[in-house]
């Protein structure tokens, strides 16, 4: 029997929810003070995911970096791998918000999209 503690981020209360498991099965869950907390804890336990906000190097742009984010949450365990993958990429200006800069990163089905417009250096 294992116990897992998860802090719910649904509201400022930050309730500590405890999930008890036997093997793969959840045998008990308590500590939440609202239904959001219960759902959040179960999802967070089964498959924690995160949106990854970072930057990508830019070539020929008015700025050396373009801020990006994953268009949807990706598995928490993929964050460092994703950062490694992104570190080796360079994109060319001009870039528009929403441009898909990396498709389906690490086969997660999630794209990495630009969150800022970057003009060409020569056009500034």
């Amino acid at each position: 029997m294992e116990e897992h503690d998860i802090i719910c981020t649904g509201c400022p209360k930050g309730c500590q929810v405890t999930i008890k498991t036997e093997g793969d099965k959840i045998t008990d869950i308590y500590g939440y003070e609202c239904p959001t907390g219960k759902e959040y804890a179960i999802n967070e336990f089964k498959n924690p995911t995160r949106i990854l906000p970072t930057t990508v190097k830019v070539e020929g742009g008015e700025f050396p970096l373009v801020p990006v984010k994953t268009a949807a949450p990706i598995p928490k365990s993929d964050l460092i791998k994703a950062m490694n993958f992104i570190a080796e990429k360079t994109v060319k200006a001009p870039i528009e918000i929403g441009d898909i800069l990396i498709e389906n990163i690490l086969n997660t089905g999630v794209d990495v999209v630009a969150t800022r417009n970057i003009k060409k250096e020569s056009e500034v």
Partner: protein
Amino acid sequence: MTKHKMVVVGAGPAGLAAALEASKNGIDDIIILERDKYLGGILPQCIHNGFGLEYFGEELTGPEYADRFMRDIDQAGIEVLTETMVLNINQDKLITALNKTKGVLKIKAETIILAMGCRERTREKIQIPGDRPAGILSAGTAQRYTNIEGFIPGKEVMILGSGDIGLIMARRMKLEGADVKAVLEIMPFSSGLVRNKVQCLDDFDIPLKLQHTITRIEGKKRLKRVEISKVDKDFNPIKGTQKWINCDTLLLSVGLIPENELSKAMNLKLHPATGGVYVNENRETELKGVYACGNVLHVHDLVDWVSEEAEIAGRSAAEYLNKNQEKRDLPIKITPNKNLTYTVPQKIEYKFKDKKFIKIYLRVEKPMENVKIVFSHNEKSMLSYDKKIVMPGEMVTVNLPVALIKNNMEEIKLSIVEKVGEKNGRT
């Protein structure tokens, strides 16, 4: 000298929203003065999520949020002068600014919107003794280097302050390959969002040391190590708890100070709790026709409310220009009473016309659960709101319906009290 109906100082979220709202209300002679090369203020470097949930109903990153307003500014044809630093404003609303190509600008404004934002508290201000090496910088400046300029300011990082900026930068530095050793917080609780604590620290096993501070800095050329100490309830270092931690970088996230040098130049007094000027419900300062909104008025947690507040200022400035305002016979003082640090606005001065309610922004002194926010007049309760939980790190807004405000009222008090008879604590 040029003349403008409205001059907005700062093209951050407050300035942009105020200008747009004024434009929507019929003002066509607006100029925004911005010191940086680009618009958006601090938002372009806030590359993380969490902006816009309230205002747009979507979760956006900082640059995306800024872009929404920038597009509208462009469409509305509002003039923006970048790389322009406002250096002085006098009581006659004469603005002195410096621009690279145009040189010294003298602008006479009919209305001014102060939207200069804030700066960060420094190591020197909190007087951490020791050496003065390279490697000590504010979290915001580190954020600028990391997200805009393209550099990593540190490899082995300690962070002082667990507000959102400190937490966000902990994650950011970690993701960019630095070793983030710990985040220290002098209070017994973190003032950042729970989500940030989980996603910035817990996710990466970065320890949060509450009731800790830094008591000495060592490093003749580059930072070598910091001495951390546990503190007691009066924030004094406890003897014997001192520990040295090796690091090459110290990021400070120890508070934001509204940037009010220009307000002081106009002889406007600053409120001791907000650090900003005093305003009425229109965000109008003690100088008629001069408005303040956003972080320069009081430090916000949610940019969504900065935009809302800026719209109040922009709309009111437009009403002023359109001569569409009527003052009450007597102003109503809004007094923060029990457990509140401050309210914005501090008074109500105008007749309501078609306003339905006045939104009051406030901050509580300490974390409290199961509370009532009470408006009272002459000791009698006018209205109360229930809240499950309130914290100093999260600004609260409450609506005061104008229907409850009588003509002869001179003071309305606001309090936060724990609900009597309710069990506190967790189930």
